[in-house]
């Protein structure tokens, strides 16, 4: 019978943060020395074998590998489209809406690092998706939050507003894909374990 683990003494974050967080699994990851070749291949990057999150997802290696390659292209492909920091902003806004403190920390930090706008990004975490920064920032946050709703509230008005803020359709699709992807990631990180304060 699968052992589901609790962490009574865990140092938990108390709010959204851009600080680096750890993550502990409730269900058992594959032990590092027990990873099969197929599971290692599914990690895509060998360094990910240190992560209990990825070793837990390695229980379904085909799904993990496809998920990872989708992720890397949505956020890393620099052939046109939306500047990378704004894809990270979409990911952070989606995570802020759904309530994934771990995902928001990683992608708020990435948005800050790529843009230098640490204070604006922090306001998103502190004030939530109702924050007003500037029209383009707000249009991306509002579109991401609308897409994170169930049922999705994203509509043609969001598209028009993103266009008016200077996004072409390739950039708009990047924003949609970035926000949509975090509806995937948020649900895994929120439901298979929890964040911890490290350092």
């Amino acid at each position, binding site marked *: 019978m699968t052992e589901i683990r609790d962490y009574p003494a865990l140092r938990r974050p108390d709010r959204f943060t851009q600080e680096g967080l750890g993550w502990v699994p*409730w269900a058992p990851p594959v032990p590092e020395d027990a990873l099969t070749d197929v599971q290692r291949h599914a990690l895509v990057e060998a360094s990910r074998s240190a992560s209990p999150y990825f070793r837990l997802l390695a229980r*379904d290696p085909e*799904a993990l590998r496809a998920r990872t390659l989708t992720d890397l292209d949505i956020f890393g492909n620099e052939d046109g489209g939306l500047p990378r920091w704004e894809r990270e902003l979409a990911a952070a806004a989606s995570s802020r809406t*759904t309530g994934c403190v771990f995902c928001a920390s990683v992608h708020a930090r990435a948005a800050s690092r790529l843009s230098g706008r640490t204070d604006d990004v922090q306001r998103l975490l502190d004030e939530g998706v109702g924050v007003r920064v500037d029209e383009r920032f707000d249009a991306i946050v509002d579109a991401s939050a609308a897409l994170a709703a169930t049922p*999705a509230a994203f509509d043609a008005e969001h598209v028009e507003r993103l266009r008016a803020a200077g996004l072409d359709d390739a950039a708009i699709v990047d924003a*949609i894909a970035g926000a949509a992807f975090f*509806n995937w990631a948020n649900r*895994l990180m929120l439901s298979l374990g929890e964040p911890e304060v490290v350092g």
Partner: protein
Amino acid sequence: MSHDDVIDHLAEIEPGSALDRIRRARPDAREHAQQSFLALLEPAEPGQLTLAERYAVAAYVAVLHDADEDRSRSAAFYLELLADEADAALVAAVRDAADAGRAHGPYGDYREPALAGEAVAGPEARIDAPVVPERLRAALEHAHLLVLHPRDARAETLRALVDAGWGADAIVSLSQLVAFLAFQLRLVHGLRAVAAAPASAASRSDADLEGAVA
């Protein structure tokens, strides 16, 4: 399954269209969104989570994402996939359970003390249709939580799946299936919204655009 790309099929993106070209500028994302569909809905080795159970979960999740009982193209698609694998009574029970479970998400309580004031109340699903086997009921109840109030997940949530007979590998596959669909259904929804806001709007004058969004 005859569709080369399920997202294009659901979003009704025609080969050579503007959205087709935009999607193909992210070739790995396009390819591996499809590979994710195949890994989770048509796996070579389904393991403990059977194909029929995967289709039941997918149909439930897709219907739960709809705004009302008018079926989206995505919900109709996943209901058809289920109908190919399951008898009509189970299809109806899954569909009715999703219609009964509909709510506005995301809601739920935060684990983080400083966020307690942002808690939003919402329903928990209890699925009691006799035609739905107990193990599948637990999977659908978990899917409801993941779709609508994932921040309510706790270690006990996974313990309920273990108690219903699910092993760790199947718990990961079930979680991936629901979470992937939360992505796929939103990407389809977003692409359809872009298609419905004609690109010709982008060539209108700035004054017209400002009028359109005022």
